[in-house]
């Protein structure tokens, strides 16, 4: 064990041994963190989520929907036309054997997925269904399918305009394609947009990629071992993340990488079992989803509420149009940037259309959402802000209760999955945030260390604050990234079109062919 890791372990041990003495003050500390945090981020949240005048429809949701629709139409439903090709690419049918040892399409996709599959699929969906009702699922699936085109656009550009350094390492992402793409087209303002994106990306990394994760991991752990102050979870998480991203202790990250996919499969497997056991309710659940999508079934805000929640949580879960995936996908080895675009469009499909739908179905089927037997509509909670649930659960604890009603011991597995997902998402976002940070402040060990320390501090804040302000800030920061990214994509999409036309012509003519493996 290195000196660094010893130091880190003793820090973690110290923080836990000090628990009893500090437990009393803890409640008030959490409250303080929460109050300061809510007060200082409120204006930003209000700006991003302000509704169209005279309605309660946030403009940002419309922004994402319009973008996904535009890209879907502009590229002629690329997500359906090239779906099969995307699978072939991931399988390695078109990979040159001489490139063995480089980053494969599968690896780039898996890495990007480990950044997106996580709490968004477990807690985020519960929030959507809890507020917007089962109908939110319909809009979530639609947003996932359309979002595939947004992802395709940004990831193609991510690879095309990445930086390749003389030492063989690569850096890519919206900040690079915005500045390079704009100057290639002779458009002004590329640099400003790239800087703006980087700022929001750092906030997004600290929000959704960090605080939200820490917050929900704490909720899950305290749900099992009993309530205790959030900052304790925060410090333990921060110590482990610090050990990985600063201490370079790869073994922790390596273990997580191996376990997270297994957890994902286990999660979907458990969801399938619950759905199949309740097969007689599948038809009813889909009925609720379709009926709720257009009528709202009495949820807060009616069908518009369902739609907003569905779109919001889908975007938060699969990050299509946000630009984060373009950072993850840009390391792939390929001579054709567009191939990574094709591969990336599988991401919203797996994340949203498959995994999120599973969660939503399990929650709906489980009967955790209370229905008024007389009207068949959902009963609202006392505040009228969400559907009343058995045991007043929300977020990840609602998902946990839903799974628990089908498989009694599953909440324990889920707790472990949540902690691991939270951890792997934090590791991914620490990298995205770091790339944005180094774009702004230059690469160098001191500059990188500053960001990494800030990142760890925010883990503690996230775990200590309550869900409301954290989720608001996380959403706002991530959607702010989408504002800049999508603006740029509208200008740059013609560059992707050129790639698409050239590639499809060569694919048809047989110039691009499969390799014999």
């Amino acid at each position, binding site marked *: 064990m290195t000196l660094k890791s010893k130091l880190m372990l003793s820090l973690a041990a110290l923080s836990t041994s000090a628990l009893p003495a500090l437990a009393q003050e803890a409640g008030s500390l959490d409250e303080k963190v929460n109050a300061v945090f809510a007060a200082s981020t409120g204006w930003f949240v209000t700006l991003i989520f302000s509704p169209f005048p005279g309605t309660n429809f946030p403009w940002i949701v419309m922004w994402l929907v319009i973008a996904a629709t535009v890209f879907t139409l502009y590229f002629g439903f690329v997500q359906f036309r090239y779906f099969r090709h995307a699978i072939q690419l991931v399988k*390695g049918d078109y*990979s040159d*054997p001489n490139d*063995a*040892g*480089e*980053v*494969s*399409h*599968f*690896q*780039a996709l*898996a*890495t990007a997925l*480990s*950044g997106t599959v996580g709490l968004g699929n477990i807690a985020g969906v519960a929030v959507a269904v809890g507020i917007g009702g089962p109908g939110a699922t319909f809009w979530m699936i639609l947003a996932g399918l359309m979002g595939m085109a947004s992802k395709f656009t940004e990831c193609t550009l991510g690879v095309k305009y990445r930086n390749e350094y003389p*030492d*063989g*390492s*690569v*850096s890519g992402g919206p900040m690079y394609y915005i500045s390079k793409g704009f100057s290639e087209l002779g458009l002004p303002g590329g640099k400003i947009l790239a800087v703006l994106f980087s700022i929001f990306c750092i906030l997004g990394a600290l929000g959704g990629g960090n605080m939200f994760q820490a917050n929900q991991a704490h909720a899950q752990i305290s749900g099992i071992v009993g309530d205790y102050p959030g900052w304790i979870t925060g410090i333990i998480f921060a110590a482990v993340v610090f050990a990985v991203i600063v201490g370079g202790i790869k073994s922790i*990250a390596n273990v997580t*990488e*191996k376990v*997270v*996919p297994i957890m994902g499969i286990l999660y979907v497997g458990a969801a399938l079992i619950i759905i199949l056991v309740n097969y007689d309710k599948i038809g009813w659940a889909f009925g609720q989803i379709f009926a709720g999508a257009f009528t709202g079934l009495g949820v807060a805000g009616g069908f518009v509420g369902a739609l907003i929640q569905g779109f919001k949580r889908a975007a938060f879960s699969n990050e299509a149009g946000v630009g984060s995936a373009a*950072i*993850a996908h840009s*390391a*792939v*080895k390929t001579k054709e940037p567009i191939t990574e675009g094709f591969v990336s469009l599988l991401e919203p499909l797996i994340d949203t259309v498959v995994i999120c739908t599973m969660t939503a179905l399990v929650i709906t089927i489980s009967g955790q959402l209370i229905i008024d037997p007389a009207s068949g509509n959902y009963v609202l909670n006392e505040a009228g802000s969400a559907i009343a649930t058995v045991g007043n659960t929300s977020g990840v604890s609602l998902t946990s209760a839903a799974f628990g009603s089908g498989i009694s011991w599953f909440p324990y597995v889920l707790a472990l999955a949540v902690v691991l997902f939270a951890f792997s998402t934090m*590791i*991914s976002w620490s*990298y*995205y945030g770091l790339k944005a940070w180094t774009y702004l402040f230059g690469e160098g060990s001191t500059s990188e260390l500053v960001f990494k320390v800030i990142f760890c501090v925010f883990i503690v804040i996230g775990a200590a604050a309550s869900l409301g302000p954290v989720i608001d800030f996380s959403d706002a920061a991530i959607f702010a990234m989408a504002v800049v990214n999508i603006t740029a994509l509208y200008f740059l999409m013609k560059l992707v079109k050129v790639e698409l036309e050239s590639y499809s012509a060569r694919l048809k003519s047989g110039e691009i062919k499969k390799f014999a493996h």
Partner: protein
Amino acid sequence: MTAKLVIGLDGEGSGSRALSHAKRLAGLIGECEIVVVYVVEWSPFTFQTAEENAMRHKRREEELKIAHERVVDPAVASLKSEGFSASGIVRHGDVADTLNAISVEQGADQIVVARSSEGGFAKRLFGSSTANLVMSASVPVTVVG
């Protein structure tokens, strides 16, 4: 017509047994070309962090360089110094599949490998690379004990 032998080395002591057997074979055959191969165990279907992906190209170059310097180049040099015609290849992939693919590509007449130096649980579970090669090779294989 010259015969071609592919020797798979694993960077362990057993590799040198394969090498000396190949020399003896080559001496008996007469006109013979020897291709020394080292395969870096790698799969395109693993899970990596974003940071590892960003550094992957660099790592790959380093792995190729180390394999050449430590295993392949010394073997090729030793063969050449003894008057054999020899060349070296380093590639990433599954050991058995890649050795076989290179042998087919090179039009080799025989593959020479040493008995596996892997042991323990992994070998019981997945079988050794040598055993996999013997089962799947399209070219005759000699396993040196």
